[in-house]
């Protein structure tokens, strides 16, 4: 029973409530950081780290935080982990840090960590919060990666910066541009809905 709930909390983030498709939150990095596969995966993992850590800490402190100032406290906790991620990527993955730029500090206002803190971690025990955070984070990473694979291969003709398309391939540059990101995400969302509706 215990184990099955744990599995459920983990897997719901991977398909049933996969952000940002089923759960339209955290769109800005989804659009901005998916021009290359490396950036997509990097962004996803940064967010996963912040989400897991903040979920665990908030769930540990949930009895201590007074209700009136809980949002402010959540923000401080999330911001702390965001700065840690910022410093660590800067120290060990500098090119990634340069590519993601302003979007690493902006994880703090990405609705996913705050939303999960409010909706889940503040009401559940540590172990479930951990599963929830990990599932949601990995789900987000998968979405970003999928979008990035599509945009990088067709928009640039490369995969992880290696040319993989045939030599005469003309990259579909629109996909690399901001409007291409919107259209691409919209189409993917539509296809997800189509698959999802077939399941019912």
């Amino acid at each position, binding site marked *: 029973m215990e184990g099955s709930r744990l599995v459920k909390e983990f897997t719901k983030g991977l398909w049933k409530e996969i952000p940002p498709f089923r759960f339209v939150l955290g769109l800005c990095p989804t659009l901005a950081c998916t021009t290359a596969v490396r950036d997509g995966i990097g962004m996803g993992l940064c967010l996963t780290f912040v989400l897991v850590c903040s979920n665990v800490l908030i769930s540990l402190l949930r009895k201590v935080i007074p209700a009136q100032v809980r949002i402010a406290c959540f923000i401080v906790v999330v911001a702390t982990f965001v700065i840690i991620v910022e410093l660590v990527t800067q120290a060990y993955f500098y090119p990634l840090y340069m590519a993601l730029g302003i979007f690493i500090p902006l994880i703090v206002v990405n609705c996913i960590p705050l939303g999960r803190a409010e909706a889940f971690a503040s009401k559940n025990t540590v172990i479930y919060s951990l599963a929830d955070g990990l599932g949601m984070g990995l789900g987000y990473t998968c979405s970003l990666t999928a979008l990035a694979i599509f945009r990088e291969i067709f928009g640039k003709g490369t995969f992880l910066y290696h040319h993989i398309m045939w030599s005469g391939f003309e990259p579909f540059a629109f996909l690399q541009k901001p409007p291409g990101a919107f259209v691409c995400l*919209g189409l993917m969302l539509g296809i997800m809905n189509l698959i999802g509706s077939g399941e019912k």
Partner: protein
Amino acid sequence: MGHEVWTFSDYIMLVVSGVLVNNILLIRFLGNCPFLGVSKKMDTAVGMTFGVIFVLTCTGPITWFVEHYLLERFDIVYLETLAFILTIAVFVQLVEMVIKKVSPGLYRGLGIYLPLITTNCCILGTCFYNIRFKFGFMPTVVFSFASALGFGLALIIMAGIRERFHYARIPKCFQDTSIGLITAGLIGLSFFVFAGLAK
């Protein structure tokens, strides 16, 4: 953008750049969650626009002061994220309280959008940009205002289009958010016309 002296035409270019060329929503990708969330109806879109313009024009300069007179002074710029988000959250809550007391009518129109604005990344993002572009005080004020205006412009255009979706036959799987995103892409494409108008 390391100008020493800012002339009037520089400011005009900055506004053009903020509103049209580098539109914060469509080109810089900031503030997309509320963009899709509140663009279903025109009146909510207008309410949100005014909320963002007000909050951003105030928090831009405030965070500028925090950065230059507090964080830089004590050499703790790495705490920027924490200090900024705290400042914005507190400011928004303060404004909410003041409006509630002083003008209940305004509160009913604008108040419900204020809590949403705290987590609107276009606010925090623009504050970061002000610092990264090494703006002085006045450019900060102007750029913050222009960004908010750009946000509002895109939001209101979007709301106008989305109200028409009622009358369109959209395939079921594309309804709502999906078609919203594609529309946003097409609006973004039209904003490319302005590229080259200003830096």
